[in-house]
């Protein structure tokens, strides 16, 4: 029998099937309508957004969309492109380095015995419970002591630390890297570091993708840190940039269209990446709760 097949009678099934589909259908509308609205609105001019049917395209949708995109990337010396690049650096590069750092630490905690191992792990665990926003102000105070606020480093460096990543890496390393394999590698004369990068990381690969995605989203969503650290708008991540534009709409109404198109442009790559890496999400997400 396939998973979930039911031996129950067809009459009961039809009723509950319809009910289940109805619930899921209604909520599909709830989840997708805002994104659909954003897509449709980005094909309209400022006047058309209020004047036409909100959930459907106009006759000139395609040319308007491209002219909106053009204005988005040229407005204010093309600062929007700069924001996208900054976000890629903060979240992309930051999560990549952060994943390697967390993986090394979690791996050492899982695969070696040494003094203070449990103490370190407990500190890391309590770090998981300290929310990122609670750190924003303290970080700002520290960075202003060393005169590094309003620099790229002020957002980039703190984003590298992911206690949750260490926690996941430890669980995964314990589960997926057999101790015998490490012994064998040692007998073959492979150094510990080399074994980690050539053998262990391969075994931990799905886990590493999950840690990367978690950290990427965490950095991408962290609003307080850039908000409090950055004044120079060429350093903004795209979220902070759009926030800044959005709060100026009442003075500069033409920004409304740019905010809408900009919001669409900034979420499309993320949704695409999520779809592409879906396999890893669905297998990795539950792992944190297994132990």
């Amino acid at each position, binding site marked *: 029998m396939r998973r979930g097949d039911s031996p129950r009678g067809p009459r009961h099934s039809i009723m509950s099937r319809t009910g289940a589909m109805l619930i899921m259908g209604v909520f599909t509308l709830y989840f997708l309508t805002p994104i659909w609205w954003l897509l449709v609105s980005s094909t309209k001019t400022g006047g058309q957004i*209020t004047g036409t049917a909100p959930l459907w395209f106009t006759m000139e949708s395609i040319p308007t969309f491209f002219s909106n995109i053009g204005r988005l990337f040229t407005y204010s010396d093309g600062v929007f492109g700069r924001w996208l690049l900054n976000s890629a650096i903060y979240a992309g590069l930051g999560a990549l380095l952060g994943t390697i750092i967390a993986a090394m630490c979690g791996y050492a905690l899982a695969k070696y015995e040494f003094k203070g191992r449990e103490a370190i792990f407990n500190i890391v665990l309590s770090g998981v419970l300290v929310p990122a926003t609670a750190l924003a102000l303290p970080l700002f105070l520290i960075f202003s002591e060393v005169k590094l606020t309003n620099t790229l480093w002020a957002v980039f460096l703190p984003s590298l630390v992911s206690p949750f990543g*260490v926690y996941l890496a430890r669980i995964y390393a314990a589960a997926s890297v057999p101790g015998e394999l490490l012994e064998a590698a040692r007998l073959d004369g492979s150094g510990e570091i080399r074994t980690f990068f050539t053998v262990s990381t391969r075994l931990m690969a799905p886990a590493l993708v999950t840690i990367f995605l978690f950290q990427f989203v965490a950095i991408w969503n962290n609003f307080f840190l850039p908000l409090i650290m950055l004044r120079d708008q060429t350093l903004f991540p795209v979220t902070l940039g759009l926030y800044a534009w959005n709060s100026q709409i009442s003075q500069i109404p033409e920004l409304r269209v740019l905010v809408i198109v900009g919001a669409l442009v900034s979420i499309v790559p993320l949704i695409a990446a999520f779809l592409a890496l879906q396999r890893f999400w669905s297998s990795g997400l539950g792992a944190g709760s297994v132990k």
Partner: protein
Amino acid sequence: MTSSSISPALAKGAQKPRRTKTFAAQRRAVLLFIAPFAVLFLAFYAIPIVFAVVQSLLTVEREGTFGAPQEVFGGFVQYQQVFQNTEFWRSVGRVVLFGVVQVPIMLGLALLFALLLDSPLLKGKKFFRLAFFAPYAVPGVIAAIMWGFLYSPTLSPFGLITSEVNVLSAELVLWAIANVVTWVYVGYNMLIIYSSLLAIPTEIYEAAKLDGASNIQIAWRIKIPLVVPAIILTGVFSIIGTLQLLAEPQTLRSFSSAISSTFTPNLAVYTTASVPNYHLAAAFSVVLALATFILSFVFLKATQRKVSQ
């Protein structure tokens, strides 16, 4: 694990020099593996927390009205201010009310969707999974901008509703924010619970099915108790997230004048820091971090006890 596998008998004799060499190599490796994280953790977690506590214990004094301001040790002066600050406590009350209503609704929906995805009743499961998860790719700021437009009477496709009921009014704006947060996070929580449902071996409820148990009975008696750890995990993260609310209310401020500059605790921290009154803001931060820590800890312990009973 590995070093304990070196039994004393093996470590004697000819093997000994080599074993000690590997052992030293392992210790070096551990240091190398842990050092980068340890340094960053110290610099950007531990030291800032200590620094914030120190700052919260300082106060600014002036000699006379026009004297130069001076930072002096003030003991618990800032904390006294925190406890007398009604705006701050109202903001705490607001997010607690938010959490008490929004977190159960969100997790309830997530659990319902996860059970439906795991049941034999649905077709097109892959589509639903993706559609429900898609909002998670939208950062809080952008979700708030989108819903802000959808809430405003002139732009909204739901003009019929939004022209009658002003969801951005003082009475309703908290729930307008709750809707944005729910919209973003239901799918994420659903996937966490769903993947832990998938980890349950089917044999466990084959027997119940043969005994004639209905899908609802199986869900209630077998599946839900088995995914409690996943629900606890999502619960802790949701509590942490609720107390930290900032991006959504701060963004919606440009759509609604009903959101004050101290609407949530973190907004109060931000507003106080921009005054700038770093000492009081640091004290707010310390109180908030402690409260979050204690609350999620208590929640974890309480639910663990219940589960083990």
